[in-house]
């Protein structure tokens, strides 16, 4: 799979010759910023259209079916991808991505509402697990950044996804909190058997958290182009 694009006059090319992520795996893509980590996560989250894709299959643990994502992009079946995303994927952004006009409770329930599942006691349960029970009725703006990240994690897990994708989930939090949030996230993922894919530049933190690391190798940087290959890994 290849994604190339141009940003600020620089041609960027990310190629993924082969990448298999098994159910329950815990992966971290590590590399400096600008090495295409976010791009790769967005491709995996089926929100970014690959430039070329020989094969891209997704077999969510929940339904066991193999979905041909490459074909869905080919036929521009955006609704199918939206549905897969809403059911099987949880996504944590670097800066939370909470909706500012919804309370913490409604933010957590959002992902469940979308797939028409009951929201009874769901927010309470997750708030308790993530130590944000006191913040449930507040607006995200009133929370600290660390608390916001916890809410984001709660939201991305509340609908019982098969895969949790987190893009620099702790980059904007101080190191102490960062480690605690990582531990919390890994703990939940282990307990739920969710596949975890994280992008981070914090090599050490990822290592301590026990994630399998995949490096973004920058093959070539010339005047106005940059080629990155994600190292072939079978986990």
């Amino acid at each position, binding site marked *: 799979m290849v994604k190339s694009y141009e940003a600020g006059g620089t041609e960027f090319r990310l190629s993924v010759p082969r990448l298999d992520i098994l159910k329950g795996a815990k992966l971290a893509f590590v590399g400096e910023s600008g090495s295409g980590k*976010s791009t790769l996560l967005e491709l995996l989250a089926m929100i970014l259209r690959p430039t070329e894709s020989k094969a891209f299959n997704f077999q969510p643990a929940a339904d066991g079916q193999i979905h041909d994502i490459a074909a869905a992009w080919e036929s521009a079946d955006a609704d199918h991808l939206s*549905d897969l995303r809403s059911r099987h994927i949880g*996504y944590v*952004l*670097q800066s939370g*991505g909470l*909706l*500012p006009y919804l309370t913490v409770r409604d933010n957590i329930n959002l*992902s469940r509402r*979308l797939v028409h599942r009951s929201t009874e006691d769901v927010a309470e349960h997750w708030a308790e697990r993530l130590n944000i029970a006191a913040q449930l009725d507040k607006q995200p703006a009133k929370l600290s950044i660390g608390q916001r990240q916890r809410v984001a994690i709660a939201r991305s897990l509340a609908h019982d996804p098969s895969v949790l994708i987190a893009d620099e989930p702790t980059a904007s939090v101080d190191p102490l909190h960062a480690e605690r949030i990582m531990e919390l996230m890994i703990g939940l993922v282990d307990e739920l058997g969710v596949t975890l894919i994280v992008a981070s530049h914090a090599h050490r933190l990822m290592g301590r958290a026990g994630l399998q690391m995949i490096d973004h190798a920058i093959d070539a940087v010339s005047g106005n182009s940059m080629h990155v290959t994600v190292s072939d890994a079978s986990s």
Partner: protein
Amino acid sequence: MTSCFILALSAVLLPLLVLFGLKFGIIGNLLAPLEDDPRYRQIRPVGSGSFSSDWFDQMAARDDVAFIVPRTRSISATMRLRLPDSETGRIISVELIPSAAGDPVLGDLDPPSGFSSVLLSQDAADKLAFAEGAGAEGILSRTYKSQQETVLLPLTVTGVAPAGAFERDGMFVSHELLVAVEDFLDGRAVPPLGWDGSPTQDDSRKFSGFRLYARDPGDVAGLRRGLMARGIDVRTRQADIELVQSLDRNLSIVFWIIAGIAAVGYGISFGSSVWANIERKQRDFSVLRLTGFRTRGIVSFPILQALMTGVLGWAIAAVIYFFVQAGLNTLLAESVGGGEAVCRLLPAHFMIAMLLTLSTASAAAALGGIRLAKLEPSLALREG
């Protein structure tokens, strides 16, 4: 933010409603007499012509013709008339006006029928001191084979035509009676009435004139053109009608120009705010998409918001309009008189106003929606 746009919409819509209400009310008041008074729909022939029964059948079949009956020569369409029971014993000469069912000048009155049932014009009734239920007697004289002959015709006056239906001494009679009178005066026999004379004409009878009314004042010009083109010179009150029609047309043009400017202005301001709003909330929309919302659902959001703004703004404008209308009508009632509403709108006008409002608002919002749909979700995510 949304409430501001609802109020802004009302502020644009309200003066337009009032303006259109005034135009509709004033033109309506000017048009009312044209619609109500049959004289504005009348087409009168000048001089005498020669019209066959076929021609009358063709004319009567036309959609723009409300009423047409043949007239005979005016010299043979008069009769002397008296009321045998009246104290004055006065005899007057009346013009015979052919009539039939659907005669616009008779309103709800029963039309004359047969050889005896007739109606009098107001003037004739006054001169004869006609009272309800009184019998009448027609007197016809001719010189036939050098002999002076007079016949008496017993008549039943079923009513008096409204004032203005005919302004001289006249009597509304059926087609049969009119033809019978002409036949008698021309020296022909009228067997049903027992009047002697030479044999009656067959179907090839020609009439010298007609009483013609268009269905609508707007149909007069077309009918007039058609008749003039066939060499039939006619008189109408077309000029009066056209004056009001052109006033209506010109006021409508002015109104639609103002409405157009207002719609474009509001559309641009609303559209640009929707646009800016989407620009500002890009990241939120991207998050929604990332969570798995479908594009369609996300795009429908600004459009729904626009429709809501439209309906509420329209409703507020409509409610305030009613107060303005009541105020204007009270204020202007004295100068207009007749208790006619100067400013008024039909329910249909409100519906049209709403549809136009909603289509303008949703067109503006749809532009924003398209912008939103084209947004690359991942780019917006990283900016934050």
